[in-house]
């Protein structure tokens, strides 16, 4: 699935975990100050379970997780690599 197709699921997850906030696709969710290390774990766990990818040590950069677009791009990249595309 493309990044655009994955965004709704990512947005759904974030709407549950970010109180009363509906971040834009390029809004830095960590800069909002609402999330912490526990949320980061939940986010990594979510992308692995929801999209069937494995987050590797080299993926643990905040730039891969701090916006909806970044998360979608990471998922698209990892899923594509996994399928050999």
């Amino acid at each position, binding site marked *: 699935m493309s990044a655009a197709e994955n965004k709704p699921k990512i947005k759904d997850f974030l709407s549950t975990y970010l109180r009363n906030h509906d971040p834009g696709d390029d809004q830095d969710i960590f800069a909002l100050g609402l999330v912490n290390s526990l949320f980061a774990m939940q*986010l990594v766990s979510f992308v692995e379970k929801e999209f069937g990818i494995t987050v590797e040590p080299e993926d643990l950069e905040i730039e891969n997780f701090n916006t909806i677009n970044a998360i979608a791009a990471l998922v698209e990249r990892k899923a594509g690599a996994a399928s050999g595309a």
Partner: protein
Amino acid sequence: MKIELTAEQLAEQAAVRDFVEEEVVPHADVYDRQERFPPDLIRKVARRGYLGSVVPREYGGGGMSMVGFGLLNEELGRGCSSLRSLLTVHSMVALTVARWGTRRQKERWAAGLASGEVIAAFALTEANVGSDARNVETSAEPAGDSYVLNGGKRWITFGQVADLFLVFAQCGGKPTAFLVERQSPGLAVRPMTNLLGTRASMPAELSLRDCRVPAENMVGKPDFGFTHIASSALDCGRYSVAWGCVGLVRACLEASVRYASRRRQFGSALIEHQLIQQKISDMITGVKAARLLCLHAGSLRDAGDPAAIMETSVAKYFASRAASKASADAVQIHGANGCGGEYPVQRYFRDARIMEIIEGSTQMQQINLARYCHQEYL
């Protein structure tokens, strides 16, 4: 909804229970007084595969489910919280290497951690840093193909015997994790003694003075990478402690029922007195509720569900507080006998105090749970 353990899980749990009854329970009070475990017991625990229980099979570990790991922690915790804490800290590091290590780090250490030939300890806490983990004061300066670490760590469980430490330090102002071998130049390890509880957990102070560590020993990346690695390790530790507390409450209950059934006052056994029955009832419900919370967290962990993280926090919060209450009631039931060395409940009482402090204090759990209440309740 039916919560049912598999036949394999029940068999594994029974095997651990038998081991603990034979090898641990008869000697746990002695180990507590001596503030150490004999190396032979640690080897036995390792040979049975307990230390590598959650390391994936591809690295020689047991590849155990999280529910199975929980049951292992319950049975060890019932026998001795100090011994269970070895499983806790070793697993925190072993899982970190298996999950987040580089290929070289895995090749070098994963098999040894799985077999228990390499004992690991988690070196985060410092004299000035406990809950505020991101602000560790130990520093790491790049130096060619190495990092030079300076600082100190305290309360490092099983630091006295660990071969490998996962050390957290500030590198360029960003918290970072390093694997530091015991024989690293510049690393000194000193025993800490006379603890309140888990006295046999062989804790140590680490002194790092120009301690040179190969650059390839960095685990993950600074800052966000550290955050996730440290948080994941602590999450594993929290889960282990929660289940260990289930075992501790069970130990309090069993000791109290045994004592109250035999001890007679005012013409009847203590267990026939209502105020004693009240405490027994609280222990029964405490152990059942704590176990259910732990099972729920474990099943979510096995499913890879993000909700597992908060449910683990709930389980640890509840189970550790249940252990505090149960152990206090156990001492009370035993009266003066609960204050002496003849009965184990004084050890349970002291060990339970530690459970509300380690792997995220009760207060930190309260803060985190309140912060995330909106996830379910808004």
